[in-house]
């Protein structure tokens, strides 16, 4: 898949993983796993990017004698998800148009 496209998609993926309640790194990886493979290093750069864009906030909490970082979505993060859904409607309709002839030929 186009790298630029996939990058944008994975950003939204991570936002969706923390949409309902805050989550931590490994949990995010596990939640996304059934849908798409994401490596730790990819997740790290995405979290960093989203934090810089203020789409999520980070909080450090002690857990079992060590520190763990929890990520919480912000208003603009929520907005990003909504934008994605809107964009996707348009993409889906384009997809339908692109594959129209394939379906008619079948």
């Amino acid at each position, binding site marked *: 898949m186009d790298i630029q496209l996939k990058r944008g998609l994975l950003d939204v993926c991570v936002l969706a993983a923390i949409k309902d309640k805050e989550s931590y790194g490994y949990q995010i990886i596990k939640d996304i796993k059934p849908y798409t493979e994401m490596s*730790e290093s*990819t997740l790290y750069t995405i979290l960093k990017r989203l934090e810089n864009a203020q789409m999520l906030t980070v909080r450090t909490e002690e857990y079992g004698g060590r520190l*763990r*970082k929890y990520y919480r979505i912000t208003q603009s993060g929520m907005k990003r998800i909504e934008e994605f859904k809107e964009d996707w409607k348009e993409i889906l309709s384009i997809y339908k148009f692109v594959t129209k002839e394939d379906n008619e030929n079948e």
Partner: protein
Amino acid sequence: MNKQEFLSRLKEKLPANEDTQECLSFYSEMIDDRKEEGMSEEEAVAEIGTVESVLSQILSEIPLSKLVKETVKPKRSLKAWEIVLLILTSPVWISLLIAAFVIVISVYIVIWSLLISLWAIEVGFALGVVYLAVYVVVFITQGRMLQSAAYFGASIAFVGISILMFFVCKKASKGTLVLSKKIAEGIKLIFIRKRVAQ
């Protein structure tokens, strides 16, 4: 490889800045969370991937200018004799550095001047059409029909050539842009590979 080895090897190769500690604690947390699920430390580290792959991913997110600055910047302060040596050898390394820089710039200039000359030819043909068209009219007013017809034919040919040239120029412009971008990316990759291999 155990967690300690993994983290210390990563630390060695990461650019020394404010994010280093944050990055290390992220991977440390990742390994601990896996261990908690019952994985052995070795298995957990193996699932994270190699130090090299982690490093490439992190470095590719850093802009080239920052990467160059950090690569050039020494990791420790220089000793007195090293500074003396650097100054004494400066006629050599400064000129080498300038030469490398100039080579990169001249590659860009050569590519872009090729493109500019292509467009110049295109503009030349387009202007030629206007020039010939003016003469067609002039010859008609003078009643020199044969010359007028000849110039009209020539101008039609020029129109054809300039339309063809326009598409060639457009393709070439796009290609040049892509090529310029590829060269910039290539230079960045060299820096990343160097860092990863160190």
